[in-house]
């Protein structure tokens, strides 16, 4: 096993790639009782057009299928009940799907070895029937409706949808009621067989474990599997223009105060002098220092009652673009948009602000090192986004500098934006 330490922290990552291609990351932490294990495939809602394994034609599957598959994997042929298995062992069990990956997980202090063995087994044994697929549709329909009544979910979905033309990041992970109704058990097998090969998957275990024993268990389990050799998955590539696909949209929901977002689409391949992996972080710093809780901008807008509390921002990243979303709750959404645009033409950062923010970011890493779930999430995110884990996070943060910031600032085009507003009912004049 390869062993590497995260700098300045008591976190050591053990790594091995098994013969069948499965990557294993283990982080022992012996002053905690819990163990947190995640088993993931690099398959999320972004991978919707691909050539299925052992075929040669590109297909498009219904939106929301990666998430649907996640639900259905809990269905087992021998009727062994996944929920029951973990409940009997006092262990929390869950799964989730995002744009880039699907993760199956458990967490708890006891029965670790049985739990791990079972996690691997059930994820590796799909069993879909027409009845189970039909049953799932009603459940997911309710999940969709729950999100559709939530104003901030609609705001985030809406702004990303309108920012992109072709890239599938534009679609909600969960799909929509029409798309999930079209899903068949054959579709599920096609996706499963293509994306759930060990060479496309990885396991991360953090907490009170012995790394050698854990690896041995995983190895023994994986060696028993009889699998075809992995062939690279052919995914569709998307021609994504730099422009946004729709400039503005307003909807109405049963709420009291409007929610508003404006997003700027930035082509990161134009920023040559800055490491590609750091561009989104730089943008996040630039925007949060200009609009976040330490900014004079937010202080002024709150005093003028344009916003109710704070302004938040976050990046949405594809291979080519970063979409910087700035959003808030505002009784004067149009005024808010006008002022943000004006501020974006004038973005700036003082060196002392950058240094203070760096100090705070390094401190956040120390906080996170106390949490086995934070460590686990950090590893998962980096593996999926960059194919490796960064252990020199302190050095990376220390290297952030004003020259890079200037480079990133140059790539922001204030006019390349899209606006989304969620209004109270009957607010839009018809």
């Amino acid at each position: 096993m390869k062993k590497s330490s995260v700098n300045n922290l008591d976190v050591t990552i053990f790594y091995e790639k098994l013969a069948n291609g499965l990557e294993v990351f283990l982080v022992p932490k012996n002053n905690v009782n819990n163990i947190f294990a995640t088993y993931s495939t690099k398959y999320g809602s972004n991978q919707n057009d691909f050539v299925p394994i052992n075929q040669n034609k590109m297909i498009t599957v219904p939106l929301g299928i990666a998430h649907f598959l996640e639900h259905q994997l809990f269905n087992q042929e021998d009727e062994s009940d996944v929920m029951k298995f973990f409940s009997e062992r006092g262990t929390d069990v869950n799964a989730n799907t995002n744009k880039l990956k699907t993760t199956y997980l458990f967490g708890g202090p006891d029965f670790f070895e049985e739990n791990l063995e079972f996690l691997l087994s059930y994820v590796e044994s799909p069993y879909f029937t027409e009845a189970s697929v039909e049953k799932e549709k009603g459940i997911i329909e309710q999940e969709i409706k729950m999100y559709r009544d939530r104003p901030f979910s609609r705001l985030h979905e809406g702004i990303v949808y309108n920012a992109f033309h072709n890239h599938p990041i534009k679609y909600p992970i969960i799909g929509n009621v029409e798309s999930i109704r079209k899903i068949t058990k054959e579709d599920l097998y096609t996706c499963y067989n293509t994306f759930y090969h060990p060479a496309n998957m990885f396991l991360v275990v953090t907490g009170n474990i012995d790394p050698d024993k854990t690896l041995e268990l995983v190895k023994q389990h994986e060696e028993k599997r009889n699998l075809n050799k992995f062939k690279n998955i052919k995914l569709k590539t998307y021609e994504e223009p730099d422009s946004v696909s729709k400039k503005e949209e307003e909807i109405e929901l049963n709420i009291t105060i409007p929610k508003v977002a404006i997003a700027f689409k930035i082509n990161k391949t134009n920023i040559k002098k800055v490491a590609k992996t750091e561009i989104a972080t730089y943008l996040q710093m630039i925007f949060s220092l200009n609009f976040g809780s330490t900014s004079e901008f937010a202080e002024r807008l709150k005093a003028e009652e344009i916003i109710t509390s704070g302004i938040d921002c976050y990046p949405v990243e594809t291979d080519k673009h970063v979409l910087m979303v700035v959003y808030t709750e505002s009784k004067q959404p149009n005024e808010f948009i006008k002022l943000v645009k004006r501020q974006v033409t004038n973005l700036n950062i003082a060196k002392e602000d950058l240094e203070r923010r760096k100090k705070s970011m390094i401190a956040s890493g120390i906080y996170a090192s106390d949490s086995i779930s934070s460590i686990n999430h950090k590893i998962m995110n980096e593996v999926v986004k960059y194919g490796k884990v960064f252990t020199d996070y302190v050095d990376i943060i220390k290297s952030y500098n004003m020259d890079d910031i200037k480079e990133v600032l140059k790539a922001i085009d204030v006019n390349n934006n899209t606006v989304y507003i969620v209004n109270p009912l009957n607010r839009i004049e018809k």
Partner: protein
Amino acid sequence: MKYEKISNIAYNLHLIKTDKFKTISVKIMFKRKASESELVYRNMLINILMEANHKYQSSRLLEIESENLYNIRYGAGSSNSGNYDCLHFDTSFLNEKYTEAGMNAKSLEFFFNFIFDPNITNQAFNEETFTLAKNLLTDDIKSFDDSPARYSRKKLFQSMVPKTPVSYNGYGTLEELDKVTPTNLYEYYQDILKRDLIDIFVIGDIDNNQIKSIIKEKFKINTIKKTNGSHFLENKKFKSRFHKIKETKELEQSTLLLGYKLEPLTKFEKMYVSYIYSYILGGSPDSKLFKEVREKNSLCYSISDSIYAVSDLMVISSGINADDANKAIRLVKEQVKKMSRGEFSEEEITQAKVTYLASLKGLEDYPGSILNLYISKEYLDYDLLEDRIKSINKITKEDVVNLAKKIHPDTIFILEGSKKA
């Protein structure tokens, strides 16, 4: 882990020393008998104290300083605990071992200033800070009903247990807010320091003497406070069948709540039996409600039950299609009946116990969870870890059935979504 409690006439100080965490966490709780008309003052206090203080006169300056202090985290809120209303102020910061010498004292000073060094001029809160705090609360009151879950719960409790603290309108009302001024809010602030029961909980690798002396210096007020009345609320009247209330809103999903009243539970039932009951009925993805309503009948994505042990209430909640309401109600009623008829297995009880024990073990990993244990010891006289481990194993099936028989149907609230997808 070493626990020390120092009782003073003005406050209790609870010190939990452990080297397990890189952080030090502090929670200060203020409590007094809940009164609906004071809610708005208490919420205003939280907003105004967290918005600015004498040293840092805006939330922007506070946030900047929090980054300088290695990203110290801070927050506050209010909550109901039966007969009492509680304010809590929280912080968590890196132990100076991981930053630089002297930071523990600086971080504690920063946190205590929220409470003890407010932005005051001429015996009144600063006008600007007051306006910001009031704007925020106005918006919170106005948008309280936006969340279908929160709105439905409010309406359910208002119907089930009117005029009790559980049914109070979360943040107070706009009419009451209009009566609050910078001057009378400052009077109220002084009143809580004098009259609220105050508990300070600290956990981390701390120097007990350092904490004691900092707090001693901060607490200048030394009023003798009346000690504890009980937190627990009791029900006296019970229905034999559900009273049903239906409202319509323009939403895609409908919210279904079934509210039950419980006959007075014993301490043992509150602490342990209710956990087992709740776990088997609707507390896990392997529970009766989850399996029946979601997995077998495909009616919902979420369904669960919660027992409010302090107020002897139980609520089962789910998100469904409006057309499925009657079917869902029938299925839920069936499962609840099964519990009182004892139609559940020894295996299910064991499973609930195993889960309870695992969660006790697990909570030792989180400073906040350990603090909560000591808070429930102080407020409700609940057991600490060792006693909990012993007691949970004593529960029998008979205990669970006896508790089930104390549960009476009361009110069903349906918030019907009228929007077509």
